[in-house]
């Protein structure tokens, strides 16, 4: 029979592990951004699986180190050497960004956690500093790392953002390491962002669905 001392010992082992409470102290300030960095990596994987090697760039120098923004920012900002990736498929050039703000159809600006956009527009906005137009956006994802029940308001907010992003957006999705049955039903309605719940290395099949969706959309877009 297990005793309270057994439980106490097991909890101590768990919390005192190098990946225990100390790990939490390290990650709590960047938990959301680390999840975005993971999704950014999955986008690179999708490009690679299409037979293209993505190139990492920095806004002002070689991306060493590769820096992810800590908050919403402008594509032309060079306060730090923010990183992004570029790739070409069938002569069409794209970029993958994290935390960049776009100008919506209404004129209001919106931050996309992770996005794929047309490179010509990105170049233009770096050359003549401006927020890229929503028409340059090909794909966009909201990324939410959560340790508890997902807040429904997040889903409604992202739907509003997508509605302001015009008609060139080929895929959009709401990614989270958790799931929420109500949000899942909300997103399953036609024309809404794809729900990518339980998207985590703990479930490779969900990673494959996400990656294959990007591959399919990029193939279709560049075949035309």
């Amino acid at each position, binding site marked *: 029979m297990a005793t309270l001392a057994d439980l106490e010992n097991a909890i101590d082992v768990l919390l005192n592990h190098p990946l225990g409470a100390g790990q*939490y102290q390290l990650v709590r300030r960047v938990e959301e951004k680390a999840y975005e960095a993971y999704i950014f990596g999955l986008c690179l994987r999708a490009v690679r699986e299409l037979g293209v090697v993505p190139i*990492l760039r*920095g806004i002002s120098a070689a*991306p060493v*180190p590769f820096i992810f923004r800590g908050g919403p920012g402008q594509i032309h900002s060079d306060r730090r050497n923010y990183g992004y990736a570029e790739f070409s498929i069938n002569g069409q050039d794209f970029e993958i960004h994290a935390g960049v703000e776009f100008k919506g159809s209404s004129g209001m600006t919106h931050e996309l956690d992770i996005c794929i956009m047309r490179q010509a527009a990105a170049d233009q906005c770096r050359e003549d500093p401006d927020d890229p137009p929503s028409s340059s956006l090909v794909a966009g994802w909201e990324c939410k790392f959560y340790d508890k029940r997902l807040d429904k308001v997040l889903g409604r907010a992202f739907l509003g953002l997508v509605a302001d992003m015009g008609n060139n957006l080929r895929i959009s999705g709401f990614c989270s390491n958790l799931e929420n049955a109500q949000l899942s039903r909300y997103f399953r309605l036609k024309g809404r962002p794809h729900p990518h719940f339980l998207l985590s290395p703990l479930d490779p099949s969900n990673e494959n669905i996400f990656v294959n969706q990007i591959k399919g959309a990029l193939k279709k877009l560049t075949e035309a």
Partner: protein
Amino acid sequence: MSGQDYTPEDALKLFMAKLRVKDSELAIEIQSAIDQGKDIQQTEPAKGRKKAREYRKTVPFSRQEALQVAINALNAYFVEQPLFRNSCQDNIAQAVVGKPRRQRYTWEREISFAADMESQGKEKAIEIELVTETQLPSDTTAVQLHQETWKIERVTTEGIQEQQRNLARVRELMRFEDQ
């Protein structure tokens, strides 16, 4: 109760007390996950001419459910976060490092396409910005951190597997047959 000499309430009290001592912020985070409660379908029986109906109701977790919620939340920090870092490292390693692409002059276009093809497959230094571009230098966060970015470092698979086993052990000790 059959396999333990303690109740779910004892287990939850001990668990939260240990968490509070180890890291009060983590304890607050876990407590808020527990306090969210859960949705259930409640049935209202038929009454006179009124038909029976179902409706959603948010209720607190039982002590045993609360223990499992707490473990799931810890799993997100202790297992998933390190896995995100490793996956990001793996995928970025397979890309190549290019030169900056800002094109002030036409002749720079040629140069901008240059990339170090030998960098493919090699581990890259990756950082997340802690002090964002809009924060003032006097901001308390920046002062507390003493660093402006946070390095995404790879975690050993063995370490992650150990924590998965440790979580499974605690989960098992917190699983009660009846309450």
